[in-house]
């Protein structure tokens, strides 16, 4: 299965919902991150110039995705940057652990397309599931 995402219109008309998929958890999380940043900008114009390390440990897979997306939204504000590349490793067992780095560049209104800011990840109809051929998630972003 090729990783990817699709925006859903029906769930949260005031905001933005998406579903994402990937053969592995890493691919799934990467699809979710791209779907989140594509709401804010045209990702093809964002160069992976600078990297930031991320490490998250949680009790459940749901929590791991919620905290990961919250982390990159936080990094968007504090570094005033968009991110286009995500190099992640996820260990799933009794606990869940994500480590890796996100790469992007400072927001530049001259070069980047500015769309709508993402305020937060919501738990509204939030889903992360293992399917026959990989992993699937549904997320609603608050704009």
């Amino acid at each position: 299965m090729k990783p990817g995402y699709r925006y859903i219109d029906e769930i949260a008309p005031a905001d933005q919902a998406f579903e994402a998929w990937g053969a592995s958890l890493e691919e799934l999380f990467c699809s979710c991150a791209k779907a989140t940043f594509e709401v804010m900008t045209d990702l093809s114009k964002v160069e992976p110039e600078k990297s930031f390390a991320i490490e998250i440990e949680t009790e459940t897979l749901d929590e791991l995705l919620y905290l990961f997306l919250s982390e990159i939204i936080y990094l968007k504000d504090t570094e005033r940057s968009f991110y286009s590349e995500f190099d992640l490793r996820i260990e799933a067992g009794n606990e869940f652990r994500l480590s890796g780095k996100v790469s992007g560049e400072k927001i530049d209104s001259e070069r980047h397309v500015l769309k709508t800011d993402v305020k937060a990840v919501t738990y509204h109809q939030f889903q992360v599931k293992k399917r026959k051929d990989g992993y699937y998630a549904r997320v609603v972003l608050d704009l």
Partner: protein
Amino acid sequence: MKKIKISDHIWEIPTTEKEGMRVPARIYGSQSLIESMDEGVFEQVTNVAKLPGIRKYAFCMPDGHWGYGFPIGGVAAFSLEEGVISPGGIGFDINCGVRLLKTDLTLEEVEPKKRELLDLLFRIIPAGVGAKGFVRLTNEKFRELMVNGAGWCVENGYGEPEDLGRIEQGGKLPGAKPEKVSKKAFQRGMNQLGTLGSGNHYLELQVVKPENIYDGEKARVLGFDKPNQITVMIHCGSRGFGHQVATDYLFEFNRVMPKYGLFTEDKELACAPYTSVEGQDYHGAMACAANNAFANRQVITHRVREGFSRIFGKSPKDLGMEIVYDVAHNIAKIEAYELDGKKEKLLVHRKGATRSFGSGHPDVPERYRSIGQPVIVGGSMESPSYLLVGTTRAEEETFGSTCHGAGRTMSRSKAKKMVRGHDLKRTMEEHGILVRAVSMPGLAEEAGVAYKNISEVVEAVDSAGLSKKVLQLLPIANIKG
């Protein structure tokens, strides 16, 4: 879901409709507004009715639409002893709200300089994703701001002492606990003070035409005494700071609920007993975010005054640039209401709903006490906004609450498919509304077609007696993030 008609403007969903409902749900609105509401509103308002310690009814205002946990337009009051506090009843944008400034300038005076004025305001008020504020804060100053809200701004030269009396709660929610705010929220908020944000946030120049004044006497008390007066409306909230506080505590509450024997099917409705450690911590952090939002609107006000001053060559005072009022529409507050013949302090959650205290209420500023608290209802970019006043009836019926805006009916993607940003900008300019937008796709998403008819919403709260119309404000220029 079964809805019983109580009156022309009130519809009730009885407790028999859903297992676990502790109180009935009451939705305000005309028949046509109720019929156009998505089913999610009724689902969510009845979920709210299941929360422990809820008193009287779970309410939804006429601008209700599907939210997270609570519907937008949701109002619920909880017992302080047995009740809960829920981030989902406040929203991610804590103390998102609307401020209205008046000027003594008229349309005739502003029209020739409108373009120049709007360009200047667009330059000095940062907006959109990635925008950075101009106020440099240290951790220490930021902590003071979290506790003192708009008062901090006045102390630091961003406003006049008399501004504070024209902001809900004096621009300072008590009980702020900066030590309960995460380092992440500190870092996110540090460089965003005085920024407008994006999404549905805006700064708008408006005109009050004589034919749009419904109550001349009240309008005069509110500062409108000449034809075609110009106003400025600011709609924004606590920016990344508040979003982070909400994110942190939503996560935390979902973890601690089992400890308190609490369960909600919808994780966005996560809650904790108000008296619990977590409940108190969130309340303290939420107050910090609320104060940050009051400060944000205060700093933006300062910049608006500077902009007008530069263009018209007069001081803000000489231009009559006074705050009419500032309302919070995403907040939880402790207020006292009479229940079963006894006054009781309750925690009132308003999520996309505005406080609406009537004349004589001690929390209404003295200059407005004879007419009731000003209620500001902001429209979408293309439509009018309204200034109303609160009523004693709202205090008696809806824990002193009324509507907050138009309410979205169309998805962002659909709006973008129907309208292109550049076309919308041109059409609006043809109708006399100048637009400056950071984001053209963002502009299209906020097109008027995506929203309910605000006039119908305002008629509904006026007829229901939850607040009374005073005047209508027509947009003449708009800044969007």
